[in-house]
């Protein structure tokens, strides 16, 4: 890979500085960034949100908006400075020389056009005048190449008919359509399940190795970098903190920030430990028996569609001992979120028995007889689960008022006591959600859940919308709260390592069924369930012990 370093590198970014002209004046987004990318090389750019990594990617593709200004430095492709090219010349490079893969497979494809046509229009933009039949042939060939089964049949599918992994494969196929020399991939796998993530990374690495593609991989995930990058650039606040070969950065990080980033990555321990084992199981706070839920085809607008019932949950049973944490792990569509929503009384179950705090609850109804209000929920995205027009204090006070109806008047001091416990400064009480950081917002959500004095807390992916370092803080806060106040919790996550860190027992879900269930150290250490093993194997090796 270092064979061609004596000649000009394929891409050279030198002293790049980008400023953004916004309403509040000029802000520097990227400062003095320099790196090179050789042929057949994978460069990882890693950093937390706001580090400026995506802006660099956009600058290379030529997608930064007019509000950005490249005030200093240069981006050279094969020795040609890109900033000297006209808009027209830059458009000719896009797709043909520099292609890109975006993060969100749900939104990077036009929902109204078949995937085949979206791929085909890329081909005809690059090779104008190609006959239709030839475009179709190439489209199907490309779809097959990125590992889509039955590519000819999938040609006329619309994006919503494909799974997330398939859509991201289509996006990769589109990127490959013009046989580019560089692909800029911005978080190409963050929206995907672990096992699919691994497949997509394998495809990318394979392309790099076989056709000599160069890849710029922008990510927040150390695991992704570890899996395929040759070199890593670590960024913070628009500047490069450290750059070196991947193995060097991962094994001997020089800078403190890199060390922090690495240590914040949750690790999976595969050797059985006795840390979480409990000598005897106390009475369960929650028992779920044979819970089922189906979503059925009553689609009024689907004039031509056939009604079809689909199981979201099928005979799921579980128990949570008082004062313990049950982790539910699964990929998207496994039904883990549906369980959480039924337990919180937000959705109804079709059949099954739920016993909470010694009382059988009616899962087909909400309200006092059901679960609503007795179980509190912590949602994935704190930005979406707080009312933007209410201050922190108002949000928490509302929660006290709501519970006062059942439990009589509550002491307003409870709010400050709770926020102190959550590590939130009292000055934050008068702020609105948009004035808080992601971590602070999630702390408010946890405080809100605890103030309601629930019998059980359901946390649905409470950390996945947060940066790695903040993730670690929130997990340890939850862990501390659980041990201090003897809380019972159901913790839903796709991340095995986080689950292992906090949960006493784990249930693995797949396609609406409970695939594997047991104490944490049994699941991670000795379980012989094939699917459990596959999930564990999908994690990058350097973060398992």
């Amino acid at each position: 890979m270092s064979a061609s370093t004596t000649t000009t590198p394929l891409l050279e970014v030198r002293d790049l500085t980008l400023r953004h002209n916004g309403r509040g004046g000029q802000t520097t987004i990227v400062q003095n960034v320099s790196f090179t990318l050789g042929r057949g090389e994978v460069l990882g750019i890693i950093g937390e949100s706001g580090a400026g990594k995506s802006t660099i990617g956009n600058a290379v593709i030529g997608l930064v908006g007019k509000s950005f200004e490249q005030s200093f430095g240069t981006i050279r492709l094969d020795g040609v400075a890109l900033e000297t090219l006209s808009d027209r010349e830059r458009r000719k490079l896009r797709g043909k020389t520099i292609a890109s893969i975006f993060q969100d497979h749900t939104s990077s494809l036009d929902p109204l056009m078949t995937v085949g046509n979206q791929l085909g229009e890329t081909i005809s933009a690059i090779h104008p005048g190609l006959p239709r039949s030839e475009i179709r042939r190439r489209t199907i060939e490309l779809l097959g190449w990125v590992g889509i089964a039955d590519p000819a049949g999938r040609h006329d599918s619309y994006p919503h008919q494909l799974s997330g992994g398939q859509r991201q494969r289509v996006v990769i196929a589109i990127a490959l359509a013009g046989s580019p020399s560089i692909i800029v991939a911005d978080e190409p796998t963050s929206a995907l399940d672990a096992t699919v993530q691994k497949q997509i990374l394998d495809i990318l690495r394979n392309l790099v190795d076989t056709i000599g593609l160069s890849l710029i991989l922008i990510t927040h995930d150390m695991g992704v970098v570890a899996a395929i990058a040759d070199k890593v650039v670590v960024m913070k606040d628009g500047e490069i903190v450290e750059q070196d070969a991947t193995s060097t950065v991962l094994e001997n990080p020089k800078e403190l920030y890199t060390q922090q980033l690495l240590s914040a990555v949750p690790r999976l321990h595969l050797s059985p430990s006795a840390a979480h084992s409990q000598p005897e199981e106390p009475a369960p706070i929650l028992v779920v028996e044979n819970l089922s839920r189906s979503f059925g085809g009553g689609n009024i607008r689907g004039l031509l569609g056939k009604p079809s019932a689909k199981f979201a949950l099928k005979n799921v049973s579980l128990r949570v001992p008082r004062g313990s944490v049950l982790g539910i792990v699964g990929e998207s569509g496994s039904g883990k979120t549906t369980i959480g929503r039924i337990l919180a009384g937000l959705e109804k179950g079709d059949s099954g028995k739920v016993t909470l705090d010694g009382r059988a609850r009616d899962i087909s109804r909400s309200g006092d007889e059901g679960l609503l209000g007795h179980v509190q929920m912590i949602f994935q995205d704190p930005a979406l689960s707080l009312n933007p027009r209410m201050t922190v204090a108002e949000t928490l006070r509302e929660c006290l008022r709501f519970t006062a109806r059942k439990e009589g008047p509550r002491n307003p001091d409870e709010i400050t006591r709770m926020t102190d416990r959550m590590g939130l400064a009292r000055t934050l009480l008068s702020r609105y959600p948009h004035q808080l950081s992601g971590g602070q917002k999630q702390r408010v959500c946890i405080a809100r859940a605890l103030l309601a004095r629930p019998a059980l807390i359901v946390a649905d992916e409470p950390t996945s919308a947060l940066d790695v370092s903040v993730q670690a803080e929130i997990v340890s806060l939850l862990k501390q709260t659980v041990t201090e106040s003897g809380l019972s919790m159901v913790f839903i996550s796709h991340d095995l390592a986080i689950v292992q860190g906090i949960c006493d027992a784990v249930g693995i879900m797949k396609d609406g069924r409970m695939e594997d269930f047991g104490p944490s150290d049994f699941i991670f250490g000795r379980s012989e369930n094939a699917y459990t093993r596959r999930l564990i194997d999908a994690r990058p090796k350097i973060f398992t012990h």
Partner: protein
Amino acid sequence: MALLSVITGRLSQAFLLIFVMSLVGFIGIHSVGNPVYNVVNIETATPEEIRRATILLGLDQPVWRQYLVFVQNVATGTFGTSYIYHQPAFGLVLDKLSATFELALFAMLVATVLGLGLGVLAGTRPGSPLDRVIVTSSVYALSVPSFWLSMMLILVGAVMTGWFPPGGRGLTANLLGFDWSFLTSDGLRHLVLPVLALAIPNIALIARLARAGTVEVERMEFTRFCVAKGLSRRRILFHHTLPNISLPIVTIVGLQFGGMLAFAVVVESIFAWPGVGKLLIDSIQLLDRPVVMATLTFTAIAFVALNTLVDLVYVVLDPRVRIST
């Protein structure tokens, strides 16, 4: 199966709407005044003549019976006989329908094409001077009352320049049993001003919708991805942006079209356009109950039919509705 249930749903919706409308219309007309005085000559009529006319029109019956008679007439499809014109009420509405229909259709065509064009033009350049001009003038176009707009159009287009006739349908030609103005050049010239009067507020409405939609779609990830794919602006606009903004516009076009068919009263009156709206107003003034009820019934049917049509267009345009997997 699904299709059948949708159709049944729509039909029952239509019947409910017509039922409520007939009740409201019936009671309303009944409380306005006695239609007998519009039928007989008040100056010369003897009490005996008035009594005879009352019996002839069925107005001596109790109100509930009159309503039942009306329902019976609806069920047989005649809507009764006009008190004034002595013709079947529904036939009268049908006669006026072609005039209203061509007016509304041309107005909606003009509004859709110009509105989309201006909206997309503004939406692709948000914040630019052109954008500001289009947005600001759309506010004016929407807030100007239509009688004033119509009068200004007559003043400029007919009185001052003499380019277009100030009113009437002009020469018509027959097609499919109806009279149409657009088939003759004289008729076309008569169409211009009323079409503009109806279209201008709708151009503004559609332009605002299209602008908002364009700004939203241009910000979406797939548009950026199309740019990154190396597609031209033109291709992105016509093949990605336009289909994606068309859904809300189809809805509003359908609704506005229905509104024009039924309630283009002001424009039709000012331009002396013999359409359904004008018939409705005239009939209300003359307390010609059968014609009013026939017009209202037609309006209800038109709205339900247009709504169904809009939903069908949705199915064609949006694969997510068409294929639910």
